[in-house]
């Protein structure tokens, strides 16, 4: 929070840009060595959609990590939101309701379910401070996922031929031509949400309170921040973002809803937010970093997949390595400067000639 030179204040973001550039160069070289042009900006953008699904969750997760909390139930919250939407829609239409209004209500129900999941997490965490957020949300994750199976069983709800549900497919598959590049609308949605989150976190008093809580929860409370209420609200927002992810996911899965969808998405969301600069200990981070981090994940997955022929699951190997290395970087820098200091002290001691007692 100290005013520093921009280079220092945004050192993490510069590091991410550097990482992105390095990846891009490696892929360009590989691409041109194969004599083909499959890796370029336009193709990259059009292939990004599938890697954007968890980006909305990552924005919500950034809020939670910024307060020093964690929420590993977002994947299950998203699936539950989708399940509620599907089940509600089916029962409303089979009850004779017109498709349009039923769909609108179902979408609202989806978003409300996400909020409710977040509310439950936030309530438990702020009410029972002796519980770790990790354990609370592990519990709710299992609970939400269990609910999905209770609603759906092993069944897949299919709305592929429903004209109203095609809206979700369009939401996910649509693109906007800007110059010669077609940008998927999902990227624009993400950037829109990211802008709102950026303003909230870095320009408004809410963001200040959020980082204050992450830095020192007790002192924040004594300084008049309504910690419990604020924290609860942020969990609700996180749940809402999970439900937003769910809407895009339904579009991606050609308007189907299954109980085992979006497994492990919470881990991607956490990974993206952490690489973006939101550490699990709270108090710091920048939304610009999260945007860059989403791009890095997308570029890596896309590049390693199409150029090196790795399957999506194998690519995770590389993603994991990058995540760990990037997270270690500050520690490594610190370690080196500490070593330097020790060495200096050593020479100081040697400079002092010693006699024997």
């Amino acid at each position, binding site marked *: *929070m*100290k*005013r520093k030179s921009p280079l220092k204040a945004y050192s993490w973001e510069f590091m991410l840009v550097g990482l992105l550039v390095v990846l891009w160069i490696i892929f360009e070289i590989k691409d041109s060595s194969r004599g083909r042009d499959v890796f370029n900006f336009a193709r990259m953008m059009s292939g990004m959609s599938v890697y954007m699904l968890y980006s909305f969750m990552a924005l919500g997760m950034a809020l939670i990590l910024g307060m020093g909390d964690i929420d590993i139930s977002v994947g299950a919250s998203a699936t539950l939101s989708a399940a509620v939407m599907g089940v509600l829609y089916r029962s409303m239409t089979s009850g004779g309701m017109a498709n349009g209004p039923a769909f609108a209500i179902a979408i609202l129900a989806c978003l409300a379910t996400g909020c409710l999941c977040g509310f439950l997490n936030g309530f438990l965490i702020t009410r029972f401070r002796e519980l770790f957020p990790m354990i609370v949300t592990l519990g709710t994750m299992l609970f939400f996922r269990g609910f999905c199976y209770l609603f759906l069983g092993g069944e897949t709800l299919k709305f592929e031929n429903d004209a109203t549900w095609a809206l979700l497919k369009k939401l996910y598959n649509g693109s906007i031509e800007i110059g010669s590049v077609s940008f998927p609308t999902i990227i624009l949605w993400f950037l829109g949400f990211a802008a709102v989150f950026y*303003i909230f976190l870095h*320009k*408004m*008093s809410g963001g*200040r*309170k959020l980082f*204050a809580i992450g*830095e*020192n929860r*007790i*002192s*924040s*409370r*004594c*300084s*008049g*921040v*309504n910690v419990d209420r604020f924290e609860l609200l942020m969990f609700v927002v996180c749940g809402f973002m999970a439900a937003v992810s769910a809407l895009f996911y339904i579009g991606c899965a050609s308007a189907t809803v299954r109980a085992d969808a979006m497994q492990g998405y919470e881990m991607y969301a956490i990974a993206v937010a952490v690489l973006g600069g939101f550490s699990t200990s709270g*108090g710091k981070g920048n939304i610009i970093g999260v945007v860059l981090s989403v791009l890095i994940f997308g570029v890596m997955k896309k590049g390693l997949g199409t150029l090196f022929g790795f399957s999506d699951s194998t690519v995770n190997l590389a993603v994991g390595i990058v995540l760990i290395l990037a997270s270690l970087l500050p520690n490594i820098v610190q370690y080196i400067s500490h070593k330097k200091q020790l060495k200096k002290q050593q020479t*100081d*001691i040697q400079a*002092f000639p*010693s*006699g*024997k*007692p």
Partner: protein
Amino acid sequence: MAEHLLEMNHITKVFPGTKALDNVSFNLKAGEIHAIIGENGAGKSTFIQVLTGVFQPDGGEIILDGKKVVMSNPVVAEKHGISAIYQHPASYPDLSVAENIYIGHEFKTGPFVNWAKTNREAQKTLDSAGANFQATAPVSSLSVAQQQLVEIAKALSQNARILIMDEPTAALSRRESEELYEIAKNLRDKGVAIILISHRFEDIFGLADRVTVFRDAHSIGTWDIHEVDEPTLVRHMVGHEIGDYFPAREPKIGKEVLRIENMSREGYFRNVCLNVHAGEIVGVTGLVGAGRTEVIEALFGVTGADSGKVFIDGKEITGKRSPRRMMDLGLGWLPEDRARQGLHLRWGIKQNISLPIIDECRNGLFIADEKERAISEEMKDLLSIKAPSVETTPNELSGGNQQKVVIGKLLAAKSKILILDEPTKGVDVGSKAQIYRLMNDLVSQGKGILMISSEMPEVMNMSDRIYVVCEGRITMEAPAKQLSQEDILKAAMNTDSERRCESESEKKSADS
């Protein structure tokens, strides 16, 4: 045998940019308690670290038993019989006392620890130091004073001849401090030399044989304790007259601004009644752990109270209390533990001061940096916070300046009633005097102050009225002028009596 057990001559230590010690000389006799006092940053800590081998001096010599020695690292210093104990004992709470004392050099039979012998020897050392607890007890079950005794026993088990006590009583209540005094005197009589570092004059006059004053990296002088008095020492410490250490004030007591009626919390405090008037400083004292801080936490709604009423400006505050709500009602709170409760240590002074009023530091929806800056600059000037800029983080500031930042938060929030919990804890003499003057200024502007303090001189000299708390109950209330130190101590340890408070309704029925 040489006259002095330890002589340190012309010690100089230079850090990049500053001279931490400049030609400092110091000596120590066997069987004496030698106090070192000085403001924060005067070089006391560096001096001790040179003696214990943490730092190497850039000049000067250390002579032990008449022989020149080099403390090349802390282990060497320990071998020479020099041990230090600190304000917060660094022990292992889940291990037993004996394990803590002999950790790293347990008595062994083959590869196994000989627990019987370790425990027996530990008990012997403890008894010789005057302990009243068992060597097999877990350290977590002991009081802070007892834990310090464990540290002392640890030092004795390593045959310490020179014991350094760095602010040993800062975390102790009065009773515990007195226990520690006895232990220290006992050790002295056995021939151990003790270097005592303390901000508390009570420690120094109660314990020390000689005193050395440090100021600005120099040792100003050494005196026998009966040659000097407190004002003289203070003058040497700050280098000039402080004027009135406790400035005089003509109290202009106004109407009641805060009243707590019969507040109780099971297991912590019972039937607490107190009130504060505009223009009044009310002192609340008692032993540490008597429940004073808990009452304040309940007042601010951090913890609940089982029963009780709160009135501000004569109006009852009903419903749930929270720090935010109480602040909006005009209460400001300086918590006891400023690092944990009062400050965001890694944030700038500016962000710290603006946090309680961040919703007012806005232009429309967005935080207005110029408003934050204006209010924090104003507070920095008003409170004369010594810092390069308002971007400086409190963890780079001295205790006194950190405390001023917290006070700045209360003033920025325009609090009318200030609750100050140990306002001068860990604050050096110069800043203390500034804080006292500031408190006087604030009450003369019509604010009310409720000051919780364990420091007797502060309570006696600053307060208009004093409440004494013992085991969660108020045992005495009286104007400060009518009380002596003995009265207060008696009330602080009076576990039998309880002062009943009369609520307004009871008063009326008594009148009729």
